[in-house]
Each structure stands twice: as structure tokens, then as C-alpha cells.
């Protein structure tokens, strides 16, 4: 059974039947021809060169690939690009506007919430989804909102402090 599934996956991977899709990323429309089995993460990174979203585990465990779809944080490594056509996708690159970083980006830097930085884009986007929905989240709510994003360097305190500082602003 498992072997059979693998063969099917290989056949699908090997096929190059492309599909024309339209993605709305950071308020820009992109018309692309992609293989329908491509994940949103693959399309963002490989086709659009938006490498801010990271592949940490590729299995939906680490949150490094988090992007926003209609304001909701989603795991782009588990989402097919064809699923999110014509929906407003925001990546970390979309938060830097007119030469100004988003308050979350500024406070992550100021609070020392960044070390290797691999989890940072996902962390910031999960935090953005939270504070866009809730103006004054509690510490517990911040912890809950970031619970899907793993960090292996800083520990989480500085990250939570950075979000709290951005909330206060």
C-alpha cells in the first residue's frame, strides 16, 4: 500500500502538466504556469524569488513557512499554490513598505528577538495576524498565537517581549 502510494507520488512528481494560475502576493498579481502539485512555499521561493518564507521541516511542524492568506496565518509548505488563487497572500517581504519596516520588524530587532533569523519571518507574520485581529492581546494569547512557530536559538521570551512592545506602540 505504502509502495503503491509512493509510485503514484513519483508519477505525479515526474509529470510536467502545467496549469496556469493567478496569485495575488503582497498586493501584486502574478500569472504563472506551474505544476499543480507545487506547494505555495515552492512557488513563492522558486518562481517569485520571495525567499523570506523558509522551509524548516517541510512537514508543517515548525512554522518557518508561515504566510498570511486573507490575514490568516497558514503553513505554505502544506498548501498547494492552486488552492489560494485570487486570495490576498502576504509574505514577510510585504511588511516592509515605502522604506519603513513594520513595527513588529523594528521591535524584533530592538528586543534582540532575532538570532539566526530562520524562524523570524514566520514569527512576525503569526504575530501580525494576532495583533491585526486583537488590538491588545494578553501574554497568554501571544504565546498561543506563536505556539506553531518553533525557535531553536533565542528562547521565546525576547520574541514575546518584542510582540508586546509592538502592541504597546
Amino acid at each position, binding site marked *: 500500500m505504502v*509502495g503503491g502510494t509512493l509510485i503514484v507520488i513519483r508519477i505525479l512528481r515526474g509529470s510536467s502538466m502545467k496549469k496556469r494560475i493567478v496569485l495575488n502576493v503582497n498586493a501584486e498579481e502574478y500569472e504563472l504556469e506551474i505544476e499543480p502539485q507545487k506547494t505555495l512555499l515552492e512557488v513563492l*521561493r522558486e518562481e517569485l*524569488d*520571495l*525567499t*523570506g*518564507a*523558509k*522551509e524548516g521541516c517541510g512537514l508543517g511542524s515548525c512554522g518557518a513557512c508561515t504566510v498570511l492568506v486573507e490575514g490568516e496565518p497558514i503553513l505554505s509548505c502544506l498548501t498547494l499554490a492552486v488552492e489560494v488563487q485570487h486570495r490576498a497572500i502576504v*509574505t*514577510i*517581504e510585504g*511588511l*516592509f513598505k515605502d522604506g519603513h*519596516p513594520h513595527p513588529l*520588524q*523594528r521591535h*524584533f*530587532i*530592538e528586543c*534582540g528577538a*532575532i538570532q539566526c*533569523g*530562520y524562524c*523570524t*519571518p514566520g514569527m*512576525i507574520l503569526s504575530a501580525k495576524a494576532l495583533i491585526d485581529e486583537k488590538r491588545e492581546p494578553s501574554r497568554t494569547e501571544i504565546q498561543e498565537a506563536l505556539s506553531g512557530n518553533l525557535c531553536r536559538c533565542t528562547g521565546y521570551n525576547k520574541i514575546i517581549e518584542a510582540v508586546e512592545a509592538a502592541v504597546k506602540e
Partner: protein
Amino acid sequence: MTENTMTNIKYLNIGQRQPRIDGMEKATGEAKYTADLKMPRMLIGKSLGSPYPHAKILNID
């Protein structure tokens, strides 16, 4: 500035939080990690598991 309680010396840098030199790049997604690099004529290697437990590789296409 922090105060050294033993000597009352105030330090400009010791004990102070220093801004990361690559903080902005990392916070904005601009920072390039190895997996983000694209070079001209770059080759990509992948591992392929064998479906056979004991076999000889006769050729690779």
C-alpha cells in the same frame, strides 16, 4: 548605561544590548541563506531511495 557596583564605572558597551548588524535583513526576509541562493547553471542534487533491498546500480540516466 549600567553601573558596576564594585567600582562605579559606567560602561558604554559592556552590559548593553547591541543591535545586530544583520537584524534588518533578517526581519525583512532579505537575508540570503544557503537554501535561498540561486547561481547561474546551478545544479540541484536530491537523494533517491532504492525500491530494492539488495541490488546493483547498472546505470544512471
